[in-house]
């Protein structure tokens, strides 16, 4: 795990393996947990909580993408297909078979994982651009064709599956308001991050990283490439399915429009801006990509409140009206600029800042 302040000596391997190795880190983490579990939901308004939910959803969805792209080197441009599979499996199981939400969610995750393996199969033969094409095909075949045309017909509910209030519940608790969704989100994000980071420091994770760095060398060292690639696809699809099933809880109705191609690309953008090959990267990327558009929207809204500025820039109200497109353009531009000027992403900056303070006052 690299860096440790001087004066801290480990006597047992378990200390070496611990996630939080010093008292300071413990304190920091406990503060963080108090903030996200108690202070934030207590004092933040509903708007901020719903924004936090979107961030959490983005983190959950981007986790599989980060695993595939950042840790296993298999580029996926169709991840919202697996989100959709998870969401639809979960919804159908709840609506048709009346299974409880947690079980439906896990089954949704497994369905997403298996579906992801199906489209990961070509990865045994092809890589790079050709693999990108197959994952893109997964998006079009799954969401635009199978789900829109066939799955939506199940039960005769029309294209969108509306979820009656009170359907989504864990045991006796009904998940309805944003605040309840927020707690579900927190729990899921923590569990998934724990799973992912523990996987990454096991044999499996090391095999994935070896495949990412050089698959031929990894094969020569005895890593079963096909098996581990497919395993990566399964785990990534599982996370995707969980994310989709989670999002069901905060939607009034599930429809294919929630899982369009743009969202897949958005997720890849999230991890590129956050930083590939880093779990911090997922969180930073998700926060950046959610907060920047919201901030921009608030800014434009504030500007339109001022009549003088509106006179100066008559296109301002139009921008607010067409904010979706502004968001798209800003997103595209920020991906391109990040890749050109800061290819390591935000997590690299974070690491630099942390190092600076850790080493202060000596810069080496």
């Amino acid at each position: 795990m690299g860096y440790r302040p001087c004066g801290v000596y480990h006597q047992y391997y378990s200390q070496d393996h611990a996630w939080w190795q010093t008292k300071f880190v413990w304190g920091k983490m406990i503060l963080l947990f108090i903030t996200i579990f108690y202070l934030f939901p207590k004092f933040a308004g509903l708007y901020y909580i719903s924004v936090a939910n979107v961030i959490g959803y983005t983190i959950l969805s981007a986790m599989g993408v980060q695993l595939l792209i950042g840790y296993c080197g298999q580029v996926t441009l169709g991840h919202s297909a697996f989100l959709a599979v998870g969401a639809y499996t979960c919804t159908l199981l709840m609506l048709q078979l009346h299974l409880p939400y947690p079980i439906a969610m896990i089954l949704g995750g497994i369905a997403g994982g298996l579906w992801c393996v199906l489209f990961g199969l070509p990865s045994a033969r092809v890589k790079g651009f050709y693999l990108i094409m197959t994952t893109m095909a997964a998006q079009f075949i799954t969401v635009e064709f199978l789900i829109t045309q066939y799955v939506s017909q199940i039960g005769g509910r029309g294209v969108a599956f509306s979820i009656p209030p009170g359907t989504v519940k864990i045991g006796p608790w009904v998940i309805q308001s944003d605040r309840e969704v927020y707690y579900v989100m927190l729990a899921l994000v923590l569990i998934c991050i724990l799973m992912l980071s523990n996987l990454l420091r096991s044999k499996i994770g090391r095999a994935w990283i070896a495949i990412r760095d050089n698959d031929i060398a990894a094969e020569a060292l005895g890593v079963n490439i096909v098996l581990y690639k497919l395993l990566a696809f399964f785990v990534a699809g599982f996370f995707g399915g969980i994310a989709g099933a989670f999002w069901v809880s905060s939607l009034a109705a599930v429809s294919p429009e929630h899982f369009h191609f743009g969202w897949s690309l958005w997720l890849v953008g999230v991890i590129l801006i956050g930083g590939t090959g880093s779990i911090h990267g997922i969180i930073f990327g998700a926060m950046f990509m959610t907060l920047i558009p919201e901030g921009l929207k608030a800014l434009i809204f504030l500007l339109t409140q001022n009549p003088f500025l509106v006179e100066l820039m008559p296109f301002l109200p139009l921008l607010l009206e067409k904010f979706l497109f502004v968001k798209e353009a800003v997103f595209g531009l920020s991906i391109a600029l990040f890749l050109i000027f800061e290819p390591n992403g935000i997590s690299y900056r974070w690491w630099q800042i942390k190092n600076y303070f850790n080493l202060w006052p000596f810069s080496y």
Partner: protein
Amino acid sequence: MEFFSQLFITGILVGSIYALVALGWTLIYKCSGVLNLAMGELTLIGAYVCLSFYNWGIPFILALIFTLGVGFALGLLTEHLFLRPMVGEPVLSVIMVTVGLSFFFKGVVELIWGTDTVVFTPMVFPMEPIFIGKIVVGQVYLWAFVASIILLLAFVTFFKYTKWGLSMQATADDEMAALSLGVNAKIVYALAWAIAFMAAGVGGTLLGNINGLNISVGYLGLLVLPAVVLGGLNSVPGAIVGGLVIGVIQNLADGYLSRYTPGGVKEVFPFAVMVIVLLFKPYGLWGWVRIERV
């Protein structure tokens, strides 16, 4: 049989447009190794630019030529601002820059021109269909075919007989050797993007003439991806054949399969074909088989 040949001919005619756009795509890939996922948005921009010119009362042919000019300029600009700094970066980063560009272009197009379907008014091509034997062909399709073929021929001539075309071929073949012989790689990259923009612009205009113009024309531009994968990424004849084949396959699927499904076969079938091709022939029909070493 009649039904089949009808579908086949229409497929070829539409496929020629895909072939044109695919040619632009392959060109970028051959010359600079950039896998461009913004091709759909390039077609969109070209189509809307041409439509704007046409709406100002400029005759269609002239508008098309102006579009070529705008495409050329935009191509040079895009290459200079976004792709030049990425030379030598990992492949995924470059791909994602093009994805970013596609979002950016799409957002800008939607901001400027809105999302409603617009048509070229007055109609550029007359509505009356032409009968070839018993096969009915819309004039739009026929003219689109003619225009694509003319442009394809023009591009191929450009590669074969002009200095810049030859230097582009040389760069595509072996960049290092080309550089040592005095080929200016910067100009070659810029030119590749300019040509891709031009080809995509004309392709988009023609597609927009067939069904009216909205954001989904950008999706049709994405169909070049199955086309180039089918033909092999770095083969110009492959791109042309791939485009034609995808056009035909799409139309046949629409004609024969759509009655068995609720719909949407036309959009998805090319991608399904692509996955199957990838499973059995990973480098396409004429692509270079890459031998990898540690």
